């Protein structure tokens, strides 16, 4: 199995989710992160003092899938999350050695 981790722009989550559902993906885990990268942060002002905020709000998605689905998932995320503006994010792939569904104890692909 593979684990796909994607860092995307927060307002793209809905579209990415739909793209993945279209692929038949039935589960994923999502959380809010702060990203640092080429996309510059912004300036904030508090009572006359300026601060540069380097971190940009991003959303991270994790999906564990069977090996053969991995490239499709990767591509689907890239397509759905793209705005062509800097800061669109990344998709990383990792190897996943095992999976268990807690409720049933099923293992491997069955667990997904």
């Amino acid at each position, binding site marked *: 199995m593979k684990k796909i981790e994607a860092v995307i*722009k927060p*307002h793209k989550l*809905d579209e990415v989710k739909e793209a993945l559902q279209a692929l038949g993906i039935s589960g994923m885990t999502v959380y809010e992160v702060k990203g640092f990268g080429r996309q510059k942060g*912004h300036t*904030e*002002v*508090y009572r006359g003092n300026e601060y540069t905020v380097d971190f940009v709000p991003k959303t991270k998605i994790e999906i564990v899938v069977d090996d053969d689905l991995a490239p499709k998932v990767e591509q689907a995320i890239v397509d759905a999350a793209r705005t062509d*503006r800097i800061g669109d994010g990344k998709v990383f792939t990792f190897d996943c050695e095992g999976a268990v569904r807690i409720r049933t104890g099923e293992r491997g692909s069955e667990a997904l």
Partner: protein
Amino acid sequence: MPAVDTGSTAWMLVSTALVLFMTPGLALFYAGMVRSRNVLSSTMHSLFAMGLVSVIWAAIGYTLAFGGDHGGVIGGLSHLGLDGVVGAVTGTGPSAIPTSVFAMYQGMFAIITVGLISGAVAERMKFKAFVAFAALWSLLVYSPLAHWVWGGGWLQKLGALDFAGGTVVHIASAAAALAAALMLGKRKGYGTEELRPHNVPMSVLGAGILWFGWFGFNAGSALGSGQLAGSAFLATNLSAAAGMLAWTAAEVLTGRKPTVLGAASGAVAGLVGITPAAGFVGPMPALAIGAITGCLCYFGLRLKSRFGFDDALDVVGVHGVGGATGAILTGVFASVTVNSAGANGLLFGGGLALLGKQLVGVGATIAFSLIASAIILKCIDLTIGLRVDEESEATGLDVAEHAETGYEF
């Protein structure tokens, strides 16, 4: 100069403070309902109205509304810059209060009316455009309307009743809101994404402050302390309560769960509904007005998605529907046994006379505010531009327009 009544003055000082306090309450009520990246932008609309409209009112708005009369349409310039206000007396006998208090009390209404409109433009209007709109609208729409109804203008002469601003405040702001929602267009994601409230407890606190402050709004509109203030206070509380129960009951009867934001919204609807009627109706009619308004607003909002515009925080659905309902029901439930300066409505032997006048008031207010607001907005659109760009809308207006972030837990 005659002496003022210390008791009535005390109550009007407090009422003025209470109406001012409604505006931060409104800011919370609205800001809790937007997404967290626009919390400050929404807050700023109401907050800034406190500064901007106060100054405009003192400079010229007050005198346009209450400085004499020109043909029933507008006041004069005799109190430009609040000239002649300090030390003067308004009212007589037990209702004699300092004119400075009267002027400031009325100014607080001007502030919150502008704040109310901001609910429709949330999450997408340029701040600069909002400021321009607030300034122009307050002068060109609010002051004339206040003159018509309370400053000796034609609606007052006609005998249309509006105790505390059902038309001037609620209907006028809702008509402006409608114009603004139409001209601004929908928020990105409206209808497709979940544009959910980010902080419901904040909205509930706001509603609590609004309820509290509304006693100043309605019972203060007696312009003195005494029986009339007492009955207006009672009517206000009962209508708010009935509005809440009606909204919640409607939710449950239509197969939904009783929501907290719904209960708060129902109370606000009841408060809006009783506003024009507060000093003219007894307690049981007040319950009826609250219940009817609460129901109508609930069913109005359920239809919302059928309409083609995005009135983000339901100014039309609550203040428009509620204000019109209340103004019309004043023509039904008003009774001179409650207020001899009022009139009898349909149910108390007054026939259709008052009801007709109320309808004139509602219609005239909608027409005037809608058209004038649209013209003002068009002018701003052509110069400053009304709407932020897409990128700013996606990032959120707090960072894009104000260089701030609401929360950093």
